[in-house]
């Protein structure tokens, strides 16, 4: 019985750790990518920065996403993560070619992907049911 209780406590600790990890990583990552993406869209529409400056901003968020994607893949389906990275890379490519309009289209798509990811990753009633 003692051994069983110890095993159950270990399971509970593992579960608590995983829940904490999930909450921190998910909310932190999604919020950061979302905020940066909106900022870049805003700057692109306002034409406030050059394409290369916008490119640098996206490059940073792309690196951040690539790093966090590995962690998110530990808890979420890999397929749900694919689109975000793809859209960031496509927007970067268009900015490199000085095609801001196409880049904005992909940034908007990225915003949509992040929203749908929020629906999948966050703890809410529809996800629960």
């Amino acid at each position, binding site marked *: 019985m003692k051994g069983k209780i110890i*095993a159950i406590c270990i399971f*509970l600790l593992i*579960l608590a750790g995983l829940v904490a990890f999930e909450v921190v990583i998910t909310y932190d990552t999604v919020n950061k990518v979302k905020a940066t993406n909106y900022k870049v869209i805003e700057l692109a529409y306002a034409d406030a920065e050059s394409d290369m400056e916008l490119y640098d901003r996206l490059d940073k968020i792309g690196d951040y996403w690539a790093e966090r994607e590995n962690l998110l893949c530990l*808890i979420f389906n*890999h397929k749900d993560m694919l689109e975000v990275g793809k859209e960031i890379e496509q927007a970067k490519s268009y900015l490199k070619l000085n095609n801001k309009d196409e880049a904005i289209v992909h940034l908007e798509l990225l915003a949509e992907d992040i929203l749908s990811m929020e629906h999948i990753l966050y703890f809410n009633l529809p996800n629960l049911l």
Partner: protein
Amino acid sequence: MIVNILRCVIIYFIVLIVIRVMGKRQIAQMQPFDVVITLIIADLATIPVADQSIPLLNGIVPLFVLTILHFLFTFVSCKNLGVRHFLNGKPVILVSPQGILEENIKKLNMTVADVMEACRYAGFISLEDINYMIMETNGNISVLPNSDASQITRSDMKIDMEDDKMPVVLISHGKLSRENLKITAVDENLLIDFLSDYNATIKEVVILHYASDGTIYLQIKGESKIVTNKILTQDGKMPKQEQIKME
């Protein structure tokens, strides 16, 4: 492919741990909630193995949650009779001294043929020999024969006999159990000397067990069994039997 193999190995060990934590009842006589959990475990374990895009944790976390739930249900059902009845149900009498209880067998979706089958399975030809037949909560059927059909026991015959002694395995597959040697107070040198009488070493022994009345059952590789009686303790006393470690 390597990922699949490794995932399979990990899941195998996790399920093994989970089943061990849940206890032996999980692999033997299952109550309704044991069955539910076992079915879900089997399904959950295969999902991350079959689909690589699903994280391994998606399979492991529910396994841990089910283990905790199972522990809680077992604990509560041990403490509270009402909860136990809710989770496990109650045993149902199928046959009483008055005959088959039709209402009860209908409730269990059973037929008279099933009752007859259970009767024969329990070793009785006729319902006449049965006093009670009970469907237990784990699905087993217990049969209580009437006095005419029940077997005569030693106590019926008033024969006073000593209880059978549980033999302790000292050597199995050429491996000496020092723990059992210590428990029974058997001397290792005396044991080796005993084996040398049969031109054998410990490694050549398939099995050697020792009962507290001094009976030794020995089988050497490639040879027939030997049953003999010898005291192998240094003080010449019979071997002890407390806290036997089963092999």
